[in-house]
C-alpha cells in the first residue's frame, strides 16, 4: 500500500533529498539501504523535493536506495513497561530487552496552556545543603548545571537521581562517553534506583541526529507520566552536545548562523524543550536538571547564555563544588518561606558573609594586613567550605540549618551577622538556655 520513492537527488551531511509527493512536514520515513533500514524525518519541503534528516546518518546511502514515508510524525512508546529499561536515541532497546510499541505518543507535542499551570510550591529535597538550603530545587523547575569538561557533573546528577524525592527518573544522555554511560547504568543499578528510572542514551559514537531526539523523547515520556499524576525528574546530560548537533544540522541546511555558528533559533529550540517542565493543576509534574558544559568556561558562550535566559536559575559546578555565587534557584522563594522560619535568614546571611570572606581572601592574597574582622571572616569561610559546600555532605535541610547557626556562632557575635533581633533571640545557639 505504501509507496517507495527511489529518486534521491542530494546527500549533504546527514540530510538527503528525495523527490516525492503528498508528504507532510515533520513526517517520519524509512530509508532502506544495504546497511539496513534507518528512520528519517522530514525537515523541509520544496515543491517535489523532500529534505530528510536520517537518524542513522547518511554514510552508505546510495542515490538508488528506497524511501518509504510512514504518514505519521515521530512517536514513542510510553507507560510503566518502560521503567528500568535503557533505549537509544531512536527509542530502540539497548539493554537486550524486547522492543516496545504500546501507548505510542507523538514526540514534541504542543505547549502547555499557561493558565493550566500552577505556581510551583513543592520542594524536592536532595540532601545536598548547597541545593536544599541555598538554592532549593522545586518541582516543575528547569535548572542547568553549568560546568566545564572534567567537573563531576555526571556524578552530581547521579547522586541527585538516587537521593531526590520523586516518583520517576528519566535520564537522557547526549554524546556521552561510553564510560559515562556505564557509570550511570552501574550507579543506578547498585543503588537500586534503576527500577524507577528510564534511560535514553546517545553516546558519542552514535549518529548525531539521534542526539537531537533524546530530549524530545525523554520529555514526551515524562509528559505522559506527569499527566498520569507522577512526579518526574528528567536529567539531561550534556545539553551542549544537543546544541552542537543543532548547529551541524542547521549548517547542513544552509541556514544563516547567528552567533558562533549556532542557528538563530537556538533560544526557541532550547525553550521548547525546557518549557516542558511543568506542574499541572490536576496532575503530576516534570522537573528538569540539565548538565551544560561551557566551552572555555565562558558563561557568555551562546549555549549557556541562551540556556540561562530560559531556565529558572542555574547551578555552577566549579572545582568539584556548587559555587554559591552565580548559582541561583529562581523558584526557591516559593518554598523556602515554608520550610522553617530561619531558612531565608540563614541563606541570606551566610551568603553575604561568604562574599565578604572571598573579598578578604583577595586582600590576603595581595599581602594586606588582616584586621580583626578579616580574621573572623577567614575562620568563617573555611568552616563554610568544609562543612556546607562539600558535595560529600548528605544531611536533611533542618540539620543543615542548625549547622549554619552553629558556624555563625563559632565565628561572630550576633550583631556582626546583621540578623534581625527577633531571629537571634530565637535561634542563636546558647541564648535560649541562658
Amino acid at each position: 500500500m505504501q509507496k517507495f520513492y527511489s529518486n534521491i537527488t542530494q546527500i549533504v551531511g546527514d540530510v538527503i533529498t528525495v523527490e516525492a509527493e503528498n508528504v507532510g512536514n515533520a513526517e517520519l520515513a524509512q530509508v532502506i539501504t544495504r546497511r539496513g533500514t534507518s528512520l528519517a524525518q522530514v525537515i523541509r519541503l520544496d515543491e517535489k523535493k523532500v529534505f530528510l534528516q536520517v537518524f542513522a546518518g547518511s554514510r552508505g546511502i546510495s542515490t538508488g536506495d528506497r524511501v518509504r514515508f510512514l504518514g505519521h510524525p515521530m512517536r514513542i512508546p510510553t507507560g510503566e513497561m518502560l521503567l528500568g529499561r535503557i533505549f537509544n536515541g531512536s527509542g530502540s532497546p539497548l539493554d537486550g530487552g524486547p522492543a516496545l510499541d504500546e501507548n505510542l505518543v507523538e514526540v514534541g507535542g504542543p505547549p502547555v496552556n499557561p493558565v493550566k499551570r500552577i505556581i510551583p510550591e513543592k520542594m524536592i529535597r536532595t540532601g545536598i545543603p548547597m541545593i536544599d538550603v541555598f538554592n532549593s530545587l522545586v518541582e516543575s523547575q528547569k535548572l542547568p548545571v553549568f560546568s566545564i569538561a572534567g567537573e563531576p557533573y555526571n556524578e552530581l546528577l547521579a547522586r541527585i537521581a538516587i537521593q531526590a524525592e520523586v516518583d520517576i527518573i528519566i535520564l537522557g544522555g547526549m554524546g556521552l562517553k561510553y564510560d559515562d554511560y556505564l557509570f550511570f547504568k552501574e550507579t543506578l543499578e547498585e543503588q537500586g534506583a534503576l527500577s524507577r528510572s528510564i534511560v535514553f542514551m546517545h553516546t558519542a559514537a552514535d549518529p548525531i541526529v539521534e542526539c537531537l531526539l533524546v530530549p524530545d523523547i525523554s520529555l514526551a515520556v515524562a509528559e505522559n507520566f506527569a499527566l498520569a499524576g507522577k512526579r518526574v525528574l528528567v536529567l539531561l546530560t550534556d545539553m551542549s552536545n544537543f546544541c552542537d548537533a543543532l548547529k551541524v544540522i542547521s549548517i547542513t541546511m544552509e541556514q544563516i548562523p547567528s552567533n558562533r555558528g549556532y542557528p538563530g533559533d537556538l533560544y526557541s529550540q532550547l525553550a521548547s524543550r525546557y518549557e516542558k517542565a511543568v506542574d499541572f493543576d490536576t496532575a503530576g509534574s516534570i522537573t528538569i536538571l540539565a548538565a551544560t558544559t561551557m566551552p572555555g568556561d565562558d558563561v557568555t558562550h551562546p549555549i549557556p547564555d541562551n540556556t540561562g535566559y530560559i531556565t529558572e536559575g542555574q547551578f555552577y559546578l566549579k572545582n568539584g563544588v556548587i559555587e554559591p555565587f552565580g548559582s541561583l534557584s529562581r523558584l526557591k522563594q516559593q518554598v523556602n518561606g515554608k520550610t522553617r522560619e530561619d531558612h531565608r535568614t540563614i541563606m541570606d546571611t551566610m551568603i553575604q558573609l561568604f562574599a565578604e570572606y572571598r573579598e578578604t581572601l583577595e586582600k590576603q592574597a595581595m599581602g594586606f594586613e588582616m584586621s580583626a574582622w578579616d580574621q573572623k571572616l577567614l575562620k568563617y569561610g573555611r568552616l563554610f567550605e568544609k562543612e556546607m559546600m562539600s558535595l560529600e555532605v548528605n544531611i536533611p535541610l533542618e540539620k543543615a540549618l542548625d549547622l549554619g547557626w552553629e558556624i555563625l556562632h563559632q565565628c561572630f557575635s550576633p550583631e556582626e551577622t546583621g540578623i534581625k533581633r527577633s531571629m537571634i533571640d530565637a535561634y542563636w545557639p546558647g541564648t535560649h538556655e541562658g
Partner: protein
Amino acid sequence: MTGLRKGRITRISGNMVTVRFDSPVMQNEVAYIQHGKERLKSEIIRVRGNLAEMQVYEDTSGLKINEEVEFTGDLLSVELGPGMLGQIFDGLQNPLPDLAAQCGFFLKRGIYMEALSGSEAWDFTPVAKAGDKVRAGDKIGFVQEKMFRHYCMVPFSWEGFFEVVFVEGPGKFTKNQAIAHLKDEKGNVHHVSLCQRWPVKIPIRAYREKLKPTEPLVTKMRLIDSLFPVARGGTYCIPGPFGAGKTVLQQLISKHADADVVVIAACGERAGEVVETIKTFPTLVDPKTGHPLSDRTVIICNTSSMPVAARESSVYTAVTIAEYYRQMGLHVLLLADSTSRWAQAMREMSGRLEEIPGEEAFPAYLESHIASFYERAGLVRLYDGALGSVTIGGAVSPAGGNFEEPVTQATLKVVGAFHGLSRSRSDARRYPAIDPLISWSKYRSFIDQEQKERGQWLLRKGNDIAQMMRVVGEEGTSLGDYLDYLKSEFFDFVYLQQNAFDPVDEATPEERQSYVFAFIDEIIQSDFSFSNKDEALHFFQQLRQLFRGWNSAPWQSEEFERTETEIRALLAERTKAG
C-alpha cells in the same frame, strides 16, 4: 479585493511557508492554511513574483505541498472593547482561559476564539446625543468595566466628521449590537457598537497632540523613583544578564506602579513567571482602588515554547490594547518582557527569508522596528482635552550580558531612562540589581535635585575608594576616605536595596521616599568622629541593622517612630562627640 482569493503551498521550511497565488495579495495580510479540518493562521511577510512568503502562527508539522491557503484581506487586528481587563490573551488575542476550558492542558493548534465574549451584556450609558458632531475617538457613551468607565468611541479608523443621528438610551447591550447611528459627510449612516477592530502594527492616532512627559510615574522602587525616575508617557528599558532580576523587577513594578491600567506582554519568556502573575494578581488588592490587581491588568502571554511568529505579534497586540485604554483618558503602563525575544523572533524570520544579515544576524531593520515600537508610548491630549498616557518599560536580555549587542544599543537610543542591571550587584545579592553607576534617566525625580546629586556623588566616590582599597588595602586608606566608603555602602544597603520579600519594604510610597532620603542626606553630610576604622565599621553596622528594621516598619507606625528615635539617638552619640 473581493471574492475568495486562494493560493497553494509550494514550500515549507520551519514556520515559514511559500504560497503561489494568482489574484492580488497584500503585504501583512492574514491568511489561513487549510490542513484537513484545521485552519492555521498566517501572515504574508514578503511577496516575490507570484509567490508569497508567510509566517505561520502555529506549528507547521504535517502540512503538505499543494494545500490550499485562503487570503482574508485583513491585516492582523485585535478586537477592542469592554472585557479585556483581567483577561489573559495569547499573542493573537485568543483568551487562554477559554482555550483551556475547551482544549484542556495543551494549546491545540488552529483553534481561535473570540477575544471578547459575544454574549456578555454591558450596561450602557450614553454621553453623546443626536445632533452632536463627532470624529474618530470621540465618546458615544460608556459601560462600567471593573472600576473604570469604559468609553465606547467612534471607531479610530473612521475618517472625517460625523453627525450623531441616534444614540441608544441606557440599557444592556452585547459587544456587536449597535449603540449609535452616525451620518458621514456624504449622508451615509454607519453603526457604532461597543467594540471595534484595529490593526496591531499601526499606532492609534485619535488625539489632539502629543505632549512632553513630565509627571513621574511612581513605581515605589526607591532606586528607580529617587535616582532614575520614569515619567508618565515615557519609556525605559531594563537590560541585564540572566539571573540579575529583570523579571522580578518588572513584576514588582506591575504590582506597585501608580498607573490606571497595566498591560503585561510576556513575550518569549518563561511560562512559570506569567503563571505567578496570573495566579497571584486576583488575590492581591490594589491599595489605591481597593480592587484586586487583576482588575487593572491585561496579560498578553506568548511564552517561549509558544509559536515564534505569534511572539513577534504579541508586543504589538499589547501596545494596541494599551493605546486603546489611553484613548479613554487613562494612564497605562506597558511592560514588555522581553523585547530581546521579540527581536529574536524577527531574526528567525529574517533568517528563513534568507535576508542579508546585519550585526549578530539581526535584520537591518531591527533598529527602526524597535524605535517605532517605543515611539508608541507618550502622553497625549485627547480631543476632549483629557490627558492619557502609555508608558513603555521593556526588559532587554542581552546575549552574554553584554550591553554592546544590537538590541540593547538600538533600545538605548530611543528610551528616556536606562536601568542597567549588573551581574556583580546581583551576585552580591544587592537587589534591585540596577547599577547606579551606569544607569541614567532623562526625567525629573521628585527628590530634591541637590540631595539626589549628593547621593549620586557619594556612590561614585564610594566606588572609587573601594577600587582603590582593593589595590592599597584598608590600611593604606585614610579614615576620611574610609568613612565616605562606609557612607556610600550604607546608602546602598539601606536605601537603594529593597527587600522584595518584605511586605513593607517591597514598596515605598513617594512621601516616605522623600522623607527617608532627606534623613539619609543628613547622615551623608554629617561629620562623625571615630578613633579608628574598626570603630567606624562597627558603628555603621549598627546603623545599618537599625535602618533595616526601620525599612520593614509600616510608614508612620508606632514601630516606625520608635526606630527613628533609636537611630537618631545613635547618631547623636557620634556627632556630639566630634
